[in-house]
């Protein structure tokens, strides 16, 4: 999308709503997947793909494109929905998610899916790879930005902090980490499993410029990502406080929906709820 595009929160909200429906249907269809974290992440992903990032869907390998690394790779359905909507591949491909031979693997695969900038799925690795991409961009003197989205549970991985340290050391101010801080992980609430707070202080102590926002407020996302364009030698972390399962009353803040697919019937009810019919 063009960076010159006028910021339009209502348009982005409408796109995100449509992508939420697509995510739910895709996961129900596949019979497995991670709906909760896909729904918490989709507003930020929508903002990036439909307002912020310089990309060319018809030329996914364009060297100057902005990169997006979904380090919390299990939320691939959110990325796939955005990529299809942006025109990287046909919408119908989404119905093949997790099927034998599908370009849409359970976790993002840069060799199989047009638009996927890095293969991810083993938590922490994608973020470290993103630091490598940002370093490569700097070395080549290219002006692209690298956005990496991490989960809050993912911040428990040691390699996240190894990479955070290296990014600050190498002054990767072209790297923007966004923590989708939805408060839940597979076994329960993050605060009970292994608390990550105070998370802003951690990133700051590692040499990052940090902001904390409501990750479902497009105005706040816009402001934070805009601020993160500044290149003053420090990498940028945005802690996006989100709601797991955002948009569906039954799913919101319920760790049960971390890795549980909705049934076909549930999917239709959820789609109707998202469409506003049950409000």
């Amino acid at each position: 999308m063009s960076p010159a595009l006028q910021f339009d929160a209502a348009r982005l909200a409408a796109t995100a709503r449509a992508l939420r429906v697509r995510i739910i249907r895709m996961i129900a269809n596949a019979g497995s997947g991670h709906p909760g974290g896909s729904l918490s992440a989709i507003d930020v992903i929508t903002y990036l793909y439909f307002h912020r990032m310089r990309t060319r869907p018809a030329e996914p390998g364009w060297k100057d494109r902005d990169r997006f690394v979904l380090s919390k790779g299990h939320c691939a359905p959110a990325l796939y929905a955005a990529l299809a909507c942006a025109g990287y591949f046909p919408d119908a491909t989404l119905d093949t998610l997790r099927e034998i031979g599908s370009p849409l693997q359970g976790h993002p695969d840069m060799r199989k899916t047009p638009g996927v900038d890095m293969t991810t799925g083993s938590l922490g690795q994608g973020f470290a790879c993103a630091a490598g991409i940002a370093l490569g961009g700097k070395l080549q003197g290219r002006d692209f930005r690298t956005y990496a989205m991490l989960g809050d549970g993912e911040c428990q991985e040691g390699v996240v902090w190894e990479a955070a340290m290296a990014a600050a050391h190498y002054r990767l101010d072209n790297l923007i980490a966004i923590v989708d801080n939805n408060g839940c992980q597979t076994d329960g609430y993050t605060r009970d499993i292994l608390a990550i707070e105070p998370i802003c202080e951690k990133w700051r102590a590692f040499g990052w410029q940090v902001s904390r926002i409501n990750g479902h407020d497009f105005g706040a996302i816009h402001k934070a990502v805009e601020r993160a364009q500044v290149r003053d030698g420090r990498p940028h972390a945005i802690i996006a406080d989100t709601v797991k399962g955002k948009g569906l009353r039954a799913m919101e803040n319920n760790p049960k929906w971390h890795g549980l697919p909705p049934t076909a019937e549930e999917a239709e009810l959820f789609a109707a709820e998202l469409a506003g019919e049950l409000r």
Partner: protein
Amino acid sequence: MIVAQPNREMYGRTLVELGEQDARIVVLEADIAKSTNTFQFQRRFPERFFEIGVAEMNMVCMAAGLAATGFVPFASTFCVFASMRACEGIRTSIAYPKLNVKIVATNAGVEIAGDGATHQGIEDLAIMRAIPNLTVLSPSDPVTTRRAVLAMARTEGPFYMRLGRQAAKVLHAEETPFEVGRMIRLREGRDVTLIATGNMVEQALTAAEILSSLKVEARVLDCHTIKPIDVAAIVAAARETGAIVTAEDHNIVGGLGGAVCEVVAEHAPTIVRRVGVADVFPGSGRDYRRLLEHYDLDAANIVLSAREALHSCHAVVS
């Protein structure tokens, strides 16, 4: 002219040679540049050298990211850390997406001596060999080390290369043809075949001389590529000579010996004896040659294994 030196030194030299020719070559290091010899590249090309600190998993993942932007990263650390601490990064972020990263693991095997079991990587060939898409190299001498480094740089795709710590004699003529995946025949013989890798190739050559004095003529193959393994050379050895002895400074489980046994069992059943670390954690030693002897990683044990192999194969025949 190439002279005897640790293979890791030749690696460092060749990196500089590559750096002169190709601006895409970048080097990542995890705080042991003097040991891995990447300091040579660091001196010449400081702007293309990245010290990642004591963080091997991050190093290999950042190398993957650099490869994704078009660079040709060489990432080095000790064999134990490369193959185990950073293993999953190599698997998932490099081998699976077929990124053009070259992992060079130095100070492999028992021969590092003094540091003991924590630093004696004897599992890496088995582990790396089990990862799809990864080519696994283990050259024996400075000539083949140089050729292996050049081959890695010009071949797109993920590589893992293992190098020892100690000085390595020159075993190959500089013009010897070197091809990834093809063993080099260093000596011809019809009675038994010795297939060795890394520092054990020199031991195998010594063993072949001893065997010759005992009227046993050994073929000696330098297996510098553990994966893809040279099936044709192994099958030919099985068919044309009486038995096979493998030799590696590595656990006998899953490395060169394992790879050869797989091929032999499927294509040409033959007696195989494996010389290697006997599935134990080794330990420290002040003198590495004595330590290698202590763990039976020497020419004497290769000779013994060859004679046992021939004896048992005659027993099978009669």
